[in-house]
């Protein structure tokens, strides 16, 4: 299953090559594109010709990178110090196993035994000063034969079915978006379609800035895995999205106010095809749409997201129906775009 392979692939910001190669190989083998470009900063831009030679130029985007840890020092005792790349709550790191570097060297992030702690220590989160990765070596020399400063470390989580019609795995933000786009690419539409698998979203929407400029689209949709905060003790308005209630449409976040007409057209498509949708509550976070919107003279954009619990952590959880409905919503929107007069 492609979503499983995408979830288990490791690719932090600036080091997306494993994910990129996986997507490229899949597109080539299944003959899903008419042109594949890899640009100077690593975006993979895929063009699929339309059945008609003209029409609006539509861009879809999902980012390939995931949050990760970067090795910042190899200590004399062989332990590795690290820093987060992208937004990670440091409190979730302790007691996890990780893969370090391109060769996926196994390591663990441990903590001082509870027996040796003062009671007040247990109420203080461990910071970067106390945390390190242990590869099971005893010296700097041994460690440096295996890893180097600048290598990334990733969670070792495996993808699997979960609970009632759900999946669990790592990096659903935004491999689920990549997987949705791969499904969308399986069909041909009336107009030329550009699908961008972007880099470095997690550290400031870097890839989409460039991809937007290259494609220069007439309109763009960004497909994301967004936070579902439908968990105990979080009030309804704080929940952002709920699992199982369909793809989420963004009305506003820190990076973008999506084009209102585009959003209402997507809502119409959902309504006509009986696809459940939800409006994302709250305005936290940002997406590639923020940068694509500002390309050249401006681009109308919208963001459609698959709700995922516990994102930016070792294990996220998402609903299968939400995933399939996101694919359906995007496909149906694209198929009916012409009859809607290209929206704009």
């Amino acid at each position, binding site marked *: 299953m492609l979503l499983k392979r995408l979830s288990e692939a490791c690719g932090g910001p600036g080091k997306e090559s494993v994910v990129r190669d996986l997507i490229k190989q899949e597109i080539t083998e299944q003959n899903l594109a008419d042109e594949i470009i890899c640009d100077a900063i690593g975006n993979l831009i895929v063009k699929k010709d339309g059945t008609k030679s003209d029409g609006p130029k539509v861009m879809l985007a999902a980012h390939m990178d995931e949050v990760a840890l970067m090795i910042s020092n190899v200590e004399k005792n062989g332990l590795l110090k690290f820093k987060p790349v992208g937004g990670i709550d440091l409190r979730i790191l302790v007691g996890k196993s990780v893969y370090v570097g391109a060769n996926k060297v196994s390591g663990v992030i441990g903590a001082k035994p509870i027996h040796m702690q003062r009671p007040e220590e247990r109420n203080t989160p461990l910071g970067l000063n106390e945390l390190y990765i242990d590869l*099971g070596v005893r010296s700097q020399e041994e460690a440096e034969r295996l890893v180097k400063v600048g290598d990334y470390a990733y969670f070792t989580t495996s993808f699997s079915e979960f609970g009632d019609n759900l999946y669990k795995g790592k990096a659903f933000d935004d491999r689920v978006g990549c997987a949705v786009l791969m499904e969308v690419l399986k069909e041909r539409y009336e107009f030329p379609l550009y699908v961008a698998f972007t880099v470095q979203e997690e550290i400031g929407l870097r890839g989409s800035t460039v991809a937007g400029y290259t494609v220069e689209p007439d309109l763009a949709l960004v497909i994301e895995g967004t936070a579902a905060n439908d968990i105990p003790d979080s009030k309804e308005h704080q929940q952002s999205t709920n699992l199982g209630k369909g793809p989420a449409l963004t009305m506003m976040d820190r990076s973008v106010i999506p084009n209102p007409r585009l959003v209402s057209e997507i809502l119409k498509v959902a309504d006509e095809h009986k696809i459940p949708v939800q409006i994302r509550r709250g305005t936290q976070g940002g997406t590639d749409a923020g940068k694509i919107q500002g390309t050249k003279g401006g681009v109308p954009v919208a963001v459609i997201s698959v709700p995922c619990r516990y994102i930016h952590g070792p294990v996220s959880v998402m609903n299968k129906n939400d995933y399939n409905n996101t694919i359906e919503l995007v496909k149906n929107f694209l198929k009916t775009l012409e009859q809607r007069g290209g929206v704009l």
Partner: protein
Amino acid sequence: MDIKKFLCEMSESPGISGYEHDLAQKISENCPWADETRSDKLGNLILLKRGKDDQNSRPKIMLAAHMDEIGLMVTKIEKEGFIRFSTVGGFDQRVLLAQEVVVHGKKDLPGVIGAKPPHSLTAEERRRTVSIEDMFIDIGFDSFEKVSQYVNVGDLITIKRDCLSLQGNYITGKAMDDRVGVAVMLECLKELAKREHIADVYAVCTVQEEVGLRGATTSTYGIVPDIGIAIDVGFGDMPGIPEYDSIKMSNGPGITVGPQVHPKLHERMVKTARDWNIPFSPEATPSPGGTDTYAMQVTRSGIPTMLLSVPIRYMHTPVETVDYTDVIRTGRLLALFIAELDHEFLEGLKCF
């Protein structure tokens, strides 16, 4: 039999204090060196390897390593299907967030201890640890009704952590404390199978150590050994722990001194290690409450006891890490110690 591989299997198996039965079964099926295997009423698993002496004069050596692990227990199922829990044994609340778990209900159900995404955390929240009563487990069912088909209050929960090989002979997993001790006993019995020994060796996989040394109390009473040796894990050297409070990793076991250790046993164990060039670290434990040694020592009219500690890092976290070379060394040291025992030495233990 590959005992290292079996240690990984043991570490991955559930066996929370009071619920060690399935694990005991697994261990008894994987010890070809025992002449006799039995369990007592509390669930301690006793692996007996007989000595060569006449039945009436055979001394009894008891080895004790606890097979129970710390874990979690269901306390409430919320309306929306989330599970609240408490701990069985001592967990640092900070290591639980975002862990994968297995809820042992009517069937085993995978779960996740949920953590808010960083996007919706306030600066204030990041500075505080999440306390266990505020945590919850998500098993992917969205109502009390669906969850309670499979899960009840009181059901146990273990951390899901595949055993992972690190560099060299290092391995990491959720329950090295004290399955490492069980592996040491197996290594010892395997080594003894190649040697002659006068004593009957009772290798006891004890229960309920983590909640108060309860299994060692009853099993020692039943066996009445001449010597009791506990094998437990000790604090491996790591940043944040002073050198004087830890045992060097990859340097053999810690041989403990303290009030719970019989001085002559200690002296003899150190001599055996030196004679056979087995590395070890001295470990001073003035307050000896934390291992089965403590329970064995005061059984019946008193038992000469001692403690070997295998250093592990990150004790009571889901990534307990051990150098398997230390397990082999500890098992070998124990076997050599047992093989060299004679009646004269055992007599001498009764007076200081």
